């Protein structure tokens, strides 16, 4: 702990144990690596997280001991593989606060989950003149599908604007969410600003107008306890790879009644009941939405990631990140001229911290930091419209997770100072 920094107040109700950072770091083999001769300081977890041994080993174990295709096999391996695959489904259902396992659909990631909704629910329910409401801070994944659907259906796409501080501006919300609103699709946490949005409150407003609500949980689910029932949303999507799990796996939660009415998305094996050349009937939930051989090994290994997160405790993770975000924002603010995006108050935001230097382009920042072993991201972060609103073409973004500590932030700050000398601007 550094003594030269004021501590961020910790929420009074946080009685969660602290993370044991030494133990956590030791669980992530990639952090042992030296990058460009330096210790790897990984500050790009909003793009994708690193993986603990338990997850890597779960993949290896699967292929060494269980590998088989699932659901239709009558042999030992097929039954073990099927049970393991379905175990993750039950686990994910629990992780989201306890939903039915039939309400949990495996996808490739958040992007595919949202496209699934657009292609099925959206295709069937959005009509000419209907309104789809998103926010100005959406990731392209929760934006482009709605631009396309609105164009196709001659529907209207509206955006909830953001304030100067990077919050949603709700001052005119009653003119944005109206009886014409059929869908509210919003991110629970911004991948650029870090802002945590009032999803429960907006869901209530939208439901009052008869709209359906989809929350993009890609940035929230890895970092805080999630309860979709409490949020009240109809659909919720997130990605395994951003929360210690393997790539190739995403979760779509959908309210059962909605999923039951929806037509299927991809069609083929596993998702059918009876197939004839002139007619097909569908399998029950959740299989109706899982055509073909899924990413079995990675779904199975995602279970280990969820267990790892739960064992640390999502409350503890949130608390750790709030403290570290507070520390990072404070230290970054001390660098003269550096502009930080999004809310300042850690309680209102997650650990994705975008910043710009008045004289050095984010790309140069990223390349320079990389030479010091520090991995951040620079660019538009798949949120071009938001960047345009911020008046930026790109930002640098450092994003935190469970394996980051104050030493990582210190390394970042030191390198940023050195960078200015290097570029001499």
């Amino acid at each position, binding site marked *: 702990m550094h003594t030269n920094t004021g501590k961020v107040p910790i929420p009074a109700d946080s009685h969660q144990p602290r993370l044991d950072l030494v133990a956590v770091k030791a669980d992530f083999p990639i952090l042992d690596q030296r990058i460009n001769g330096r210790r790897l300081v990984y500050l790009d977890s909003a793009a994708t997280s690193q993986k603990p041994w338990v997850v890597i080993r779960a993949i290896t174990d699967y292929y060494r001991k269980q590998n088989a295709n699932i659901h239709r096999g*009558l042999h*030992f391996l097929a039954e073990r593989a099927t*049970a393991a695959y*379905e175990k993750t*489904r039950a686990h994910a259902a629990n992780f989201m606060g306890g939903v039915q396992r039939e309400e949990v659909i495996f996808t490739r990631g958040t992007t595919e989950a949202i496209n699934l909704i657009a292609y099925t629910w959206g295709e069937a329910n959005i009509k000419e003149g209907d309104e789809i409401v998103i926010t100005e801070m959406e990731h392209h994944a929760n934006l482009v599908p709605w631009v396309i659907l609105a164009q196709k259906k001659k529907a209207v796409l509206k955006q909830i604007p953001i304030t100067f501080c990077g919050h949603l501006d709700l001052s005119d919300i009653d003119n944005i969410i109206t009886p014409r609103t059929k869908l509210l699709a919003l991110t629970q946490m911004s991948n650029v600003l870090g802002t945590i949005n009032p999803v429960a409150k907006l869901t209530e407003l939208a439901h009052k107008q008869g709209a359906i609500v989809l929350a993009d949980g890609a940035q929230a689910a890895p970092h805080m306890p999630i309860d979709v029932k409490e949020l009240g949303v109809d659909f919720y999507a997130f990605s395994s790879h951003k929360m210690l799990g393997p790539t190739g796996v995403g979760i779509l939660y959908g309210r059962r009644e909605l999923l039951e009415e929806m037509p299927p998305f991809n069609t083929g094996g596993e998702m059918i*009941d009876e197939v004839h050349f002139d007619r097909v009937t569908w*399998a*029950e939930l959740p299989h109706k939405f899982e055509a073909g051989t899924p990413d079995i090994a990675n779904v199975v290994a995602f279970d280990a990631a969820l267990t790892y997160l739960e064992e640390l405790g999502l409350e503890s993770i949130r608390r750790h990140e709030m403290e570290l975000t507070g520390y990072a924002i404070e230290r970054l603010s001390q660098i003269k001229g550096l502009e930080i995006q999004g809310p300042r108050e850690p309680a209102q935001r997650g650990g994705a911290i975008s910043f710009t230097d008045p004289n050095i382009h984010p790309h140069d920042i990223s390349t320079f930091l990389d030479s010091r072993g520090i991995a951040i991201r620079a660019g538009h972060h798949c949120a071009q419209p938001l960047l345009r609103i911020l008046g930026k073409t790109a930002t640098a973004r450092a994003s935190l997770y469970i394996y980051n500590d104050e030493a990582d932030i210190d390394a970042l700050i030191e390198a940023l100072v050195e960078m200015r000398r290097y570029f001499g601007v």
Partner: protein
Amino acid sequence: MNEQLDDMYREIILDHYRSPRGRKPLEKADIKSDGSNPACGDEIEMQVEMDNDTIKDIHVNCKGCAISVASGSMLAEITKGKPIDEVRRIAELVRRMLKGEQVEIPDDLGDIDSLRGVQQFPVRIKCALLAWATLVEGLKSYEDGHKQASASTENDDDEHAE
């Protein structure tokens, strides 16, 4: 697991499988009910002659695996002469037993107990259930005033639950 295998294919089951009861079609059927598991390919045809609320005679023709055939054969043997309500209770008992619940099977339904081993083969549970689901459907439509019914256990996917 050879033990498991023998546990599933008990002598009683193999006996029902080799010489299924109720194979003879009925002259006069009050209920016709067909069932299938498209995924497994099990198919069943059933005819029931009723005496008010009691099953007077029953014909079961099952094309499928040993488990579905044996289960259908036991059903034919057991349900004959029983009132609808009791048949429903037995069907529910079979269902709960196959899902792994701790249920007591009364002595007079003894053969059914031999289906317990199927629990260990989740994919096969729907095979054992097919005949029972088909009969329950048939009885329901009989009560509703129809004669023809059909059932499927294909999507009875509970075995995936933890």
